[in-house]
């Protein structure tokens, strides 16, 4: 596997960003139902409009805006996930995907024939269908408190989307949300390095020769991206 393909190329990324500028007035740029900050402008490459609304709404609940820091949408997490879908990882090309696919105890690990992009496609459709059936509307239109309850039900495995357990979808969404918020901004999330600033992670500084034995002192320098962006 050519590992360079594991990252969206700079060219792809810039194209996506350029597209986002042109499409900023689409529904993807609309204000969120809870009246929070507008979503980060991004024209999704993989997700369709319904999926994109779900993704934005769910990410904003997994990492909500509060006194400690911004929400996942402000951090660009949905954009990160969308870009990840177009990598070997998103296509499941770094996983062993040979048949047969058999069921087994949970502790023996993931055994479904779905790549990450399939998990999102099936999972979001399933979650929205569940919400329509039980709540009368798509997930994104629910009140935030109810969105939290639905996400918690998925986390506890209280629904199934065809042969995709909701818990499997939830784990995929949660882990990618954390990755997007806390990875280097070059991958499309952690906008303004605000997630790193929130926890005090200095990013690509990666040189503590003079600080290793300054015991008990707070590291004084702000965070920096691989790109050179700093905060």
């Amino acid at each position, binding site marked *: 596997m050519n590992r360079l393909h594991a990252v969206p190329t700079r060219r792809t990324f810039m194209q996506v960003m350029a597209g986002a500028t042109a499409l900023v007035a689409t529904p993807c740029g609309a204000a969120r139902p809870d009246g929070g900050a507008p979503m980060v402008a991004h024209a999704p490459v993989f997700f369709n409009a319904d999926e994109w609304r779900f993704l934005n709404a769910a990410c904003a609940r997994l990492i909500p805006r509060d006194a400690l820091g911004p929400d996942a949408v402000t951090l660009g997490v949905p954009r990160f996930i969308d870009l990840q879908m177009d990598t070997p990882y998103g296509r499941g090309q770094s*996983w062993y995907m040979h048949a047969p696919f058999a069921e087994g105890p949970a502790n023996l690990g993931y055994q479904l024939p779905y790549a990450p992009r399939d998990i999102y496609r099936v999972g979001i459709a399933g979650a929205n269908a569940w919400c329509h059936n039980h709540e009368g509307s798509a997930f994104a239109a629910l009140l935030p408190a109810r969105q939290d309850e639905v996400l918690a039900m998925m986390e506890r495995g209280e629904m199934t989307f065809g042969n995709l357990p909701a818990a499997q979808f939830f784990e995929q969404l949660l882990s990618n949300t954390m990755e997007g918020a806390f990875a280097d901004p070059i991958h499309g999330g952690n906008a303004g390095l605000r997630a790193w600033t929130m926890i005090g*992670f200095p990013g690509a500084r990666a040189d503590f020769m003079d600080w290793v*034995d300054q015991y008990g002192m707070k590291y004084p320098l702000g965070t920096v991206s691989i790109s050179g962006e700093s905060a």
Partner: protein
Amino acid sequence: MDATRCKPVDVVIVGGGWAGSIMAKEMTEAGQKVVMLERGPDRSTAVDGVYPGSIDELEGNFRYRLFQDLSKSTVTIRNNIHQRALPYRRMAAFLPGEGVGGAGLHWSGVHFRMPPDDLVLRSKVIERYGKSFIPEGMNLQDYGVTYEDLEPFFDRAEKVFGTSGEPYRINGEVVGKGNVFSPSRSGPFPLPALKDVYSAHLFRKAATEAGFHPYSMPAANASAQYTNPYGAQMGPCNFCGYCSGYACYMYSKASPNVNILPVLRRDPLFELRTHAHVLRVEMDSTKTRATGVTYIDQQGRTWTQPAELVILSAFQFHNVRLMLLSGIGRPYDPVANEGVVGRNFVYQNVTTSMVWLDKGIETEQFIGTGGGGVAFDDFNSENFDHGPLGFVGGSPVWVNQAGVKAIAAAQAGGPPGTPRWGSAWKRGLVDTYRHSLRIDAHGANMAYRDVFLDLDPTWKDAYGLPLLRMTFDWKDNDIRMNRYVVDRIGDVARAMGARHVQLTKREFGVPFDTRKYQTTHLGGGAVMGTDPTTSALNRYLQVWDVPNVFVIGANAFPQGTGYNPTGMVAALAYWSAHHIRTTYLKNPGPLVSP
């Protein structure tokens, strides 16, 4: 398939990690023409370790850019013989490497010598506690070598790796503040110990107050500029925190790529072929002699490389699988309790506890080095009386702050019981990341009759060959050992004045979970020893039944150890190479009569 025959060479080496690179260096020094086959890509610090692109946590630790490509080949896993094993489809519990340097490129750098008692553990346990102390079904064995045998080779490996550490005893004299339980050395470490990060500093103080004997962990992360015996150069570690999962951009962490290959690559006796995936060792009609190996290249062409001597030095379980696929040695049958290849498969028994300090104290967990830290060995190996405790094995305890980065911190979140998302998660994360530290019980795992490796009956790799099947679970003895040692971590945490402590112990009845990272320190499966009915290899790591095949790696460990394996693997490579050079090459044949 028709394989094209390559020009014969003296030695063919399978796998370009530490073991392969050491063997290649030693064999070329002995005048042998060597071909080293590596199934992954070529890698070097100049390309894979370039700052700042190399220190990308998403790519390094979450997209596994230096690790095995599971899409082509993996293993299947089950907890017991009655289950159907299922494929390990995504990286999680363990992370084998791929590419030049192997796991030696992405490792942390913890560099130990094996405790002398661990090498003769069966003899030692019987001597101290009697034979009946060994639980039913535990295949406790000696290595067939002693610390005295291996000391020159531990020493050699440290000099090549540029290891930093503090000695305790040299030639029998106490010389320093090192590990009081460590055996006497023939010389000092090549470099002084690394500085303690703050967490390790606090742990050292508290462990002393609790009555234990803390020491600086020996680390192949250079504490100062260093030139090794091959002329390879290392720069001083700056505690950047990007060791495990990364090529060290500072040239500070020892790797085959930095410490051996720059010299080998210039040697006309050495040839490296990458993207060369070995399918099997070729045997003659007597099945007692290997004639070479067959591999498939990146274009899908198959080649046979004839050689006089075949050295398997792939990762532990790949070596075992190649032996099984090639018909080398008798496969282990756990029901009949016969055969040796696949027998004594072991893991390592690691749990991580956490300590929260006052909110005014910043633990700066992002500062770290992979091999550095402070440990105590009061409950490792045979350093304590197991008699009243009733278990075999032990566990060093340490703060090995290797650099906790943002994604890993976010996924870990707050203390157990805290929500994994939402505002409560965020509060727990910020508090934990800034004010906590982690203490590991890094324990041994014993070998058992019903824990083993064989070939899977169902799943195949990308080349149509059966995957290796692991049958593994935690056993009562090892769970009790872990729980005892973790309680001692509680003693240290109290001495630290912890605000909150989470002691993490292995739980009875909870099976081995392939979904959670534990450690990549897998061992055994083709073990060394003195009895061909219980070991696949003799004490020189030579296959009993096929004397022109040597198998170098942690596969040779008869049972697990509390220490990280690399120091022992490197010493065994130098030990085996020494006996090949001084005895085998002059008169090829068995180095030990069965």
